[in-house]
């Protein structure tokens, strides 16, 4: 095993160990039943159930029905996923179809 590969394995293991017990608090802002919003709900739900089962709280907020909440979190487009916990706070925009990108953003997968 080369040093580079070994380093990458270590990072990966560290990431996994570090995020193993952490509780995730996520907030998904959607725009009613628009196509991308529904896609985002399905995708993020799938990710949560697969990678964060039993240790996540997902709140889906409709920006039409609660625009005030969206303003508070500086949401400029929908769908947007906000990772409130664990810190740091992160935002992901789009329909969340790129699972790898979301996993990296959620610190559930090391950045390549």
């Amino acid at each position, binding site marked *: 095993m080369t040093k580079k590969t070994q380093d990458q394995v270590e990072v990966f293991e560290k990431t996994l160990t570090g995020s193993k017990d952490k509780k995730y608090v996520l907030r998904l802002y959607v725009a009613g039943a628009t196509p991308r919003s*529904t896609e985002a709900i399905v995708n993020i739900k799938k990710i949560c159930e697969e990678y964060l089962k039993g240790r996540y709280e997902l709140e889906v907020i409709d920006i039409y*029905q609660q*625009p005030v909440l*969206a*303003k508070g979190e500086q949401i400029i487009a929908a769908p947007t996923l906000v990772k409130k916990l664990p810190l740091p706070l992160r935002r992901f925009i*789009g329909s969340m179809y790129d699972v790898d990108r979301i996993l990296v953003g959620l610190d559930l997968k090391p950045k390549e």
Partner: protein
Amino acid sequence: MEKRRTSQELEAELKETKLRLEEAEETLRAIQNNEVDALIVDGPQGQQVFTLQGAEQPYRILMETMSEGTLTVAVDGTILYCNQRFAEMLKNSLNGIIGSSFQEIMPSGEWQVFKALLAECGKKGCRGEYHLGTFEGGQVPVHISASPLRLQGQEGFCIVATDLAKQLELEQQLRQSQKMEAIGTLAGGIAHDFNNILAAIIGFGEMVEEDLPPDSPSIPRIQRVLSAASRGTELVRQILAFSRKAELTRTPLSLAPLVKEAIQLLRASLPTTIEIKLSMKAARDTILASPSEVQQILMNLITNAFFAMKERGGILGINITNVDFKPDSPVFDADIEPGEYVQIVVTDTGSGMQPDVMKRIFEPFFTTKGVGEGTGMGLPVVYGIVKSLHGTITVESEPGAGSTFRVFLPMTRTDEKLESSEAQVTPKGSEHILFVDDEALLTEWGQAVLERLGYSVTALTDSTEALNLFSSDPSRFDLVIADQTMPKLTGLQLARKLLTIRNNIPIILCTGHSDSVSPEKAKAAGIKEFLIKPITRKELAESIHRALDKKTKK
């Protein structure tokens, strides 16, 4: 002076800036890739949402304003969208529902059935009745109608959920009222026959009493017969009371003496471990009711309170106060009219009730008492009477902390003549009366009683024969007394025909129990007096007197 930042702080700030930059790049990329379908823009009119598909707006407004719950669900049961109404149904917030799974809000047994139903849901959709769990832990019955929906290449469903709670409650009320009606009809039928029997016993009994010499040892015996028959009469009226079909004579009466009388009557049977606290603070307590109705309300409530304190004793409180429901006051019962009410509060410090028991206490035949201790008719009777008096009844109770029943009865004007039990002289007369009743025993009694009162009587058992006789010489009779329930022509039909022949003939209509005629209906037909069987000699004499007086006044 600006504080010098540590390298750690600077490192964190740099990291944060990098992240924000990444986010900005991602936002641009997402918009370019058509991954975003709404933008939120802060404008002069506040925050506005611009969807990239404005066409959905009308449908959205439609869904938001629907009085049914609407939602879209992914094929795995994830709720993708729901309207405010659906959130209200589940007593939850929109955030609490969108994103959760249908499986989480449906009892597991029903979810399996529903899932199978969705799997077979064709183009025409599918429907069924299920339960959904509310946020507070309760359940709401719903009718669900689901239609398949294609969501961006994925299968899903559009669901309309109708809250059935109100409908089920109405159905329950309907069943209840049908049950009450059936019992009422049964009781009414029996009451009619019983009243005829009792009429004969009372009628002939009174005659025997009158014929006996004043020192006869049989006088107290026949008085017992009459008293027992009167109790029987009262019992029949009570049976009819709960179905609100009792034909009782309501007069303005004061509550205070009746309350005292009820307490006196029950005091002897209550153990000394039960203390009675009576408080009568009502400045005015006159209501329009019959004494037996008020007695039934009080006796049933007091007996129940006593039963709840049977084991450990306690305090039985009876309070009479005045309450004024103003038109704008939040009246708890939609049926109650604003106005002045007399409030009767019966409290006990007994065992109290569980919520499931409390829900059913006004149902006929529902009882928590053992066999032989209660019939389950006490509170339904109270409920029936209170409603028929245009009042309302409420109950508050907690297990172990006693119960409070509040009865609100509308106050009546006190200038109306108060019920008086003063003995009056039985009026007599000499007019010619036509007496018609298909019961031979009662025509015999009617003839004898009226003749004793000085009248000349023609008594018949056939209503058509009575009509023919009257038609042949309309001026021959001064008054007609007719029974309502007769074959061929009923009392009311006969009366109408007689009045077309001679419009000023005074008519008295008697009934044992009949749904087809009421005092109002009789009055509208031109009938002077309306009597409920069994009729005492005195009642009959007074009624004749009034009917003839009215005629002479004309």
